[in-house]
């Protein structure tokens, strides 16, 4: 079966400019055969939603280290909902206190990765998420 490669958007919302983690993940996903689009820093929720649609990605990965994850994720998730986009799972990585994880998951973030995560864990999570939704048809 000639499957299309998985497409992932790695995005840095908010004003935090620490992008080493995002870049390492982007590179690891690319090494695992996925097509990765990296937005660069300082993305608004609107820019991220637009990029996800335009690039027709299967999964969105957010990276936040500034502590603003609650506010930013809630804005991004609700914008996805507003646009009735329900088939693009969102995952998050960064400095996220354990206590915040349940709230983020309840909000709709599929997985939260903290320090010490291996790139292999992220790669396999993306595979699982895509498999779970059974490779939906591309929107364009």
């Amino acid at each position, binding site marked *: 079966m000639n499957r299309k490669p998985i497409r992932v958007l790695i995005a840095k919302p908010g*004003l*935090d*400019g620490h992008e080493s983690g995002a870049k*390492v993940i982007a590179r*690891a996903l690319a090494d695992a055969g996925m097509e990765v689009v990296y*937005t660069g820093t300082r993305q608004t929720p609107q820019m991220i939603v637009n990029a996800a649609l335009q690039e027709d990605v299967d999964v969105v990965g957010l990276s936040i280290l500034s502590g603003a994850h609650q506010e930013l994720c809630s*804005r991004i998730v609700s914008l996805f909902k507003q646009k009735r986009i329900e088939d693009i799972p969102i995952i998050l990585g960064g*400095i996220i206190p354990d206590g915040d994880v349940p709230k983020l998951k309840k909000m709709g973030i599929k997985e939260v990765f903290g*320090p010490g995560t291996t790139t292999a864990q992220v790669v396999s999570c993306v595979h699982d998420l895509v498999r779970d939704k059974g490779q939906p048809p591309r929107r364009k």
Partner: protein
Amino acid sequence: MYDVDFLEELRARLTEWENTTLKERLTKTQENKTEFTSGSGEFVTDRIYTPLHAAGLNYNEDIGLPGQYPFTRGIDPVGYRAFRSPLGFYAGFGSGESANRRYRQLYAAGSRDIGLALDLPTQLGMDSDDPLAGGEVGKVGLAIDTPADLERALKGIPLSGLKTGTVGNCIGPWALALFLVLCERVHLQPSQMGIRLQNDPFKEYTGRGTFIFNPTVAVDFASDVVAHMYKCVPTWEPQWSCTTTMRWGGCTASQEVGFGIANLICYAEAAQAKGVKPEDYIPRVDLHMSSDNDLFEEVAKFRAVRRLWARIAEKRFKTRDPRILSLRISTYTAANRLTAQEPLNNIIRSTLHVLASMLAGIDHITAAAYDEALALPTFESARLASLTKHILNHENCIGYTVDPLAGSYYLESLTIQVEEKARHWYEQVEDMGGAKAAIDSGYYLKEMAKGQYQNQKEIESGERKVVGVNTFVLDKKVPIPLFKGDPKGEAKQIRRLNKIRQKRNKARATKGLDELSKTAEKKARGQEINIVPAMLEAVRGYATEGEIFAALRKVYGDYRPPAVF
């Protein structure tokens, strides 16, 4: 350094040792690895070092004496024997009141050196109610929109004799204006307090990402700060050129040296073009470096950077003036090596990072707090970090002699290796047109991304062991008390900002902004004019930070870097 016959004899003896003593030992058990490499992975570490490794050294030319060319052994002839480092802190969060509480606590505990951490909107020239600032106000530092916020943050703290400053790098002219206006408002002679501005825009393109304008405009503004400060308060420190975040982002030890020198040369020449001579600039700035895991490689790195700087600056500025050739170094310990797993282990890591700096005679050391991988430091963790160097100084006799590791065959050999490789990196950057070109072309970012990915792969494969992460792993979390911010700070700060917008003299604020725009336009047309005086007028008139930078953004546009990974 040694005579030829002695070296011949030693070489023969070494071969004999390998064939007998060593061979016999290795028949029992093998070494843990077939090849050992230095912490940054760039140098192969030999089993033993002997005079053969240092044979090419010329003591007088390459090592010399502290306080003299080539400054390998330090720029101060007495080093830590005259150590009077203050109990320094870098702190800030929330709106003025919560930061003020921490600053008072630090002051009461004896600190007279308190750096102000600013939140991201403030570092980016945005007001707290900017649509992009949502969620970020007061998160990683203090929110400042107008001089009133700075006053509130420092309320009740005697400013005379206090040393403070910010690391806002792309807002240098505004930060300088803020402190000058603060002095005016409390009727203090600026020279009675100490101000230390990081004012290093290069750091933002390569590290934290809070850039605003393109590198050429940013360097122009940064050197305006240098020139204005030199004219009006020459005792303040106008710039510290940082390699910390480049190292944390993936640079090797020798890249940190080579790139750091290229960056500093660029700043020194920008200052020179505005009338601040190198002999007046270099003594007021420092190269701010990381202090990483491999203690010996780091000591070699610090010795190598002093020597290489002396050699390069001698040619570049055609001088033997020690004020120019002796480079002051400050360090921030390697926050990137701290782990979120078993955070108490980080106390040991930071202590050794401080030790490396002290063994190399670093002038100003800041230790990362053990909880930094998880949150902003608590008062207790920040105090513990700051006390590290004082414990080593008072209780462990580290500073009794200057450059204690000099003459070690290993260390001298490593110092040569770092210097040689660093010179290569420096030349690479110069060949492409200097530091600005290395940023514009994405060269620095690509080198860093390479190193960072390599580091992550090594940790995942187990080739690089990190205790608590990939070896001696504990299967439960070790909880520590973590700092918690003020969730209501953002709304409070926005209310306050709106009140100021209503209360201020509107005509004066508008006039200040108009003048600032005109000055910026003149600058953009190539006229030689310093931005700081116009900035001062705008700040005095209570134009908000966001309004000030919106005016400048209109002239210069926003910079977008290449998104490479």
